[in-house]
């Protein structure tokens, strides 16, 4: 990892204020990401992956979202303190995001061209006046972006509306939009979950190729370790708003140390042993309003001891970029 990380999140705590109480959705996230590093974030539904991703771009509605502690820095800029102008200089030109369901993330009443041009024009406005491009140049850029994400007949596509496109095409359009500002970091929040299996593979390959060709750093969110393994070199496992394990992908498969990660791995059906039983993780997602004290995983953990109930385990470094938050990590 480079000396100054691209993205640095420290002890980030975020809550949602609601009628039923305050939900402690992110509980002390510590994470650094270097330039051109590919990071996967996995965890079961509701563990806070999307919230973490949106936090980086400060996209959460506040209220109800409220940052309680910690910091997020991107290229040295304090995201939590930045004003709207500074945020706009980051959103798009520096950090771009693609989303889970391409059907709902495109505006239904504007053409693809209008939307793409709007985003390009917004980035253009962040530049000094002399460097801004003319409308025709922006349009040419838009078309070339659509070609870059391997959409056929890009010129005609500019005049089409989202409902006239298939899911895979829409996701490619969103990827083109994300690339339009030439960002340094791409956040992909389950970009293939809503797509057909065959399309999923194509889109994943596209993202992997783009990331490699453009030298992007990527934060790929998924609940599927397989997806992450195919596109990322490092993976972070989240459980109930905390990072429980962080390691190079090979290391996760070879020697995961956290009981939750092991549970996740055991839950992956293998081709060879597809008939074998799927060992899921017993118990249900913990309540975020009154989370379990100590380690949030202890009620479902087969190894839990008294200490786990009382004391929250810190993320400890095990060397080789492997970090684990478990009191009993040495034993496994």
């Amino acid at each position: 990892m480079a000396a100054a990380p691209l993205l640095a999140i420290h002890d980030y705590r975020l809550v949602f204020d609601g009628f039923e109480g305050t939900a402690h959705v992110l509980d002390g996230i510590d994470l650094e990401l270097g330039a051109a590093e590919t990071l996967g974030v996995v965890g079961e539904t509701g563990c806070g992956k999307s919230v973490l991703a949106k936090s980086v771009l400060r996209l959460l509605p506040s209220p109800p979202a409220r940052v309680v502690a910690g910091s997020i820095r991107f290229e040295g800029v304090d995201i939590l303190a930045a004003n709207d102008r500074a945020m706009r200089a980051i959103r798009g030109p520096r950090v771009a995001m693609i989303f889970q369901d391409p059907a709902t993330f495109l505006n239904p009443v504007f053409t693809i061209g209008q939307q793409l041009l709007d985003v390009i024009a917004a980035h253009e406005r962040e530049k000094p006046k002399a460097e801004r491009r003319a409308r025709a140049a922006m349009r040419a850029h838009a078309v070339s972006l659509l070609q870059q994400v391997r959409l056929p007949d890009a010129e005609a596509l500019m005049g089409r509306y989202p409902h006239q496109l298939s899911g895979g095409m829409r996701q490619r359009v969103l990827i083109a939009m994300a690339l339009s500002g030439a960002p340094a970091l791409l956040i992909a929040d389950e970009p293939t979950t809503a797509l057909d299996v065959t399309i999923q593979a194509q889109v994943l390959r596209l993202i992997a190729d783009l990331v490699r060709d453009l030298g992007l750093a990527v934060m790929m969110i998924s609940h599927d370790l397989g997806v992450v393994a195919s596109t990322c070199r490092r993976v972070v496992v989240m459980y109930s708003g905390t990072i429980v394990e962080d390691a190079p992908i090979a290391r996760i498969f070879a020697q995961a140390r956290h009981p939750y990660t092991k549970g996740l791995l055991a839950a992956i059906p293998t081709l060879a042993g597809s008939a074998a039983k799927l060992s899921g993780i017993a118990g249900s997602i913990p309540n975020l309003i009154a989370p379990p004290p100590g380690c949030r995983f202890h009620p479902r953990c087969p190894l839990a001891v008294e200490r786990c109930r009382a004391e929250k385990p810190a993320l400890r470094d095990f060397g080789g970029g492997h970090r684990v938050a478990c009191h009993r990590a040495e034993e496994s």
Partner: protein
Amino acid sequence: MIVYVVQRVLLTGLMLFGLICITFTVSNVAPSDPAALAAGPDATRDMVETVRREYGLDKPIWEQFVRYVSDLARGDFGRSIVSTRAVGTELAQYFPATFELVALAMGLGVLVGVPLGMLSAVYKNRPFDHLVRVFAVSGVALPAFWFGLVLQLTFAAQLELLPTSGRLDIASPPPPPVTRMFLVDSLLAGDWQTFADAFAHAILPAIVLSFPCLASILRVNRAEMVEVLSADYIVAARAHGVSPWRIVAVHALRNAMLPTLAMIGLRYGWMLGSTVLVETVFDWPGIGLYAVSSAIAGDFKPVMGVTLLIGLNFMIANLVVDLLYGWLDPRLRAAQ
């Protein structure tokens, strides 16, 4: 898109036919003796028979209908018993006055209601939103005549800023009639003084007429904006760095305008049919007063004429709304 337009126009034609059938039934079929009705209460039997022949009421019903429609097509709505003038002429006199008022009120309702609704959605549950809510609720709740009187007392009687009633100052002659809308005619004649006078007279009644309409446009637009602003594509636009005001006023508003447009169309028709209170308070010689006084006098033809005219306007408004819908929402166009 062309298919969509043709479809809408045909549908409007069909609705108009339906409306004509209704007014025909009411005026020529439903009354036990339409000839006696047309001849008036004091007519002798001979007179009634003359009228019957003259109006073709002794002919078979379909022939009567054909005649009715061809009369309408020529702008012949029959005669008023009270004034003995042609209803068409009277409508041409009264309708522009009302239309002028309604158009102003509608403009006010849209130009104020839409931005206020949009802003209160942006500032949802903040003081501004609460203030606007109070404003909107009073718009729906205040009785028009009371509100009109209060405005008259304040701005005309006490502050003497605006005239109390009428369309023009007594001393100033009306502009040469072209559309019979004084605002338009005075502009056409290049007569700025009359224009200013007509405008000053129209302000208070237009405000009173538009207030409930403005309030409902505002509420619908706010509700839609709140919904749209939490949509995924708005989050995406923000993530891509589009500026907040552009997101609100372009990306979100266009989506929120769809239901708002429907409300605007409805309100237009509703306003045309409910100007009578405002016309009474402000002594505005419009179609509402005309219809009510004709109805009280038992004068049938003018009432039917007004019904047809308002109905026609309503349909045109709906057609315009439908076409705008199709223009704003590509999914509708494609659905054809």
